[in-house]
């Protein structure tokens, strides 16, 4: 178990990098996912088709394929994802500004992939609002946007929280893939680095890595469980 204490900085650094990746991708996925959900429930048929196509595509592709596309496709388009080098933001998230683009590619892939699940979670929340609410709003003469803003979305938020949380948990776990796609120093690449390159004993490293992921996923999961239970009583 010595390696856990001796190399604590490596584990902590890995955890921090994974956390950075998750924070950035979660923000991106929530924003993009909201747009996707808006497309899917919009009154304009072509926009609905675009939203549906997006969700069908990204929900059914393995994240591995999305990551490969980010890693091979973007360079072929002549982009190193430099638009993510946002001044100011790269002070905290230092990997955003590096010359190696793999961290930025991983953020893009995770964002695109997770946005489809976030969009579906929000849409499920909207669908969970009783139809009478939207109908009443329409009969009062509210437009689509007014209806959403002041009647449907405030109620949809409650029903969407749990599926949204589950999408974020899944995203945290999916971020482990980044370590196998050239992102150096996140939790999963630390596992590989310490065991196969530096020859540290396997078991303690496995414990350390697992603890790192559980530290992020279990609290969110327990929080969601509690939320769900409280709601079940209320109903």
């Amino acid at each position: 178990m010595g390696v856990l204490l001796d190399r604590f900085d490596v584990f902590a650094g890995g955890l921090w990098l994974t956390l950075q990746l998750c924070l950035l991708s979660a923000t991106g996925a929530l924003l993009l996912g909201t747009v996707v959900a808006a497309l899917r429930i919009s009154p304009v048929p072509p926009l609905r088709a675009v939203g549906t196509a997006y969700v069908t595509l990204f929900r059914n592709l393995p994240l591995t394929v999305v990551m490969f596309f980010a890693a091979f496709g973007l360079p072929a388009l002549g982009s190193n994802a430099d638009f993510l080098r946002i001044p100011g933001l790269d002070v905290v998230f230092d990997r955003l500004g590096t010359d190696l683009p793999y961290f930025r590619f991983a953020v893009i892939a995770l964002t695109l992939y997770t946005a489809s699940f976030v969009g579906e979670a929000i849409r499920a929340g909207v669908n969970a609002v009783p139809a009478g609410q939207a109908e009443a709003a329409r009969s009062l003469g509210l437009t689509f946007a007014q209806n959403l803003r002041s009647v449907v979305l405030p109620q949809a938020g409650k029903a969407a929280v749990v599926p949204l949380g589950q999408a974020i948990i899944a995203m945290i776990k999916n971020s482990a893939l980044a370590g196998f796609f050239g992102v150096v120093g996140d939790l999963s690449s630390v596992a590989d680095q310490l065991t196969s390159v530096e020859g540290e004993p396997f078991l303690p490293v496995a414990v350390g890595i697992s603890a790192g992921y559980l530290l992020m996923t279990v609290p969110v999961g327990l929080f969601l469980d509690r939320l769900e239970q409280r709601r079940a009583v209320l109903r």
Partner: protein
Amino acid sequence: MSVLFEVPGPRARRLTRIGSGVAAVAVAAAAYLLVYRPLADKGQFSPAMWGPLVDPSNESFALVWQRIGLGAANTLLAAALAIAGSLVGGTLLAVLRVQLRAAQSRRFAGLAAPVALLLRVLSRVLAAITRACVEVFRGLPVVITIFLAARGLPELGVSFELDLWYVVIGLTVYNMVVLAEILRSGMENLSRGQGEAAAALGLGTAQTTWTILLPQSYRIMLPALIGQLVVVLKDTSLGFIISYEETMVIAKQIIGNLGNPIQVYVVVGAGFVAVNHLLSALARHVQRRLAERPGR
């Protein structure tokens, strides 16, 4: 029709048509300038890149598709084994957890006091252990469980000839726990009368679980089960971290020889989307059928 908006009238339909037309032209122009031109300049649409994948007269065509077929077969094999394993393991785990929960409220009144106390402590401890296992394996990324299986099991003296088994074990451990939780919540959300009626007929806890609760829970969770199959199919592609020869590893080998990553991933991705979309459609269909059937 959605309840969120009125059926669009003639003016809205006309606006939609005009707007879509303009947007389609704009998107096509952007796609041409930002996607097609850079790719075409790099020769990504050349026959040399696509030929092996789409042109039957190409010398590599037969071999490439033979390899992709092998990869697809391996993906399906790993997914089938993993889903079968998770179903068996998940059922056992769900039953165990329901039984342990039932045992916790029993007082074992007919037994001597020390034995009863021991049994009560034991049931609590076992319940806590299974709960912890569920939380741990639900919270770990599947890449990590596959990695742990491939590296950890040989360390513990369990090693397999085939990489397949590490992938299957890694996938099973995770999905077993997920399915167990779906099944368990299915059993606990059944109406109380089901369990009470079984008890009134004189069935024991185990009999009640196996003959009354579990079959109904299976029916409710059938759509979720098919949905999980989609997840498993996608996750078999994580086998690439230990070089299990599934579709993605084969794709990588082809790319290593022909140097056409974008084209190969387009083909492989299209295959995944097609199969998984069909499975999702099946899940929705089953769900609708179950919802229609009365007297659940």
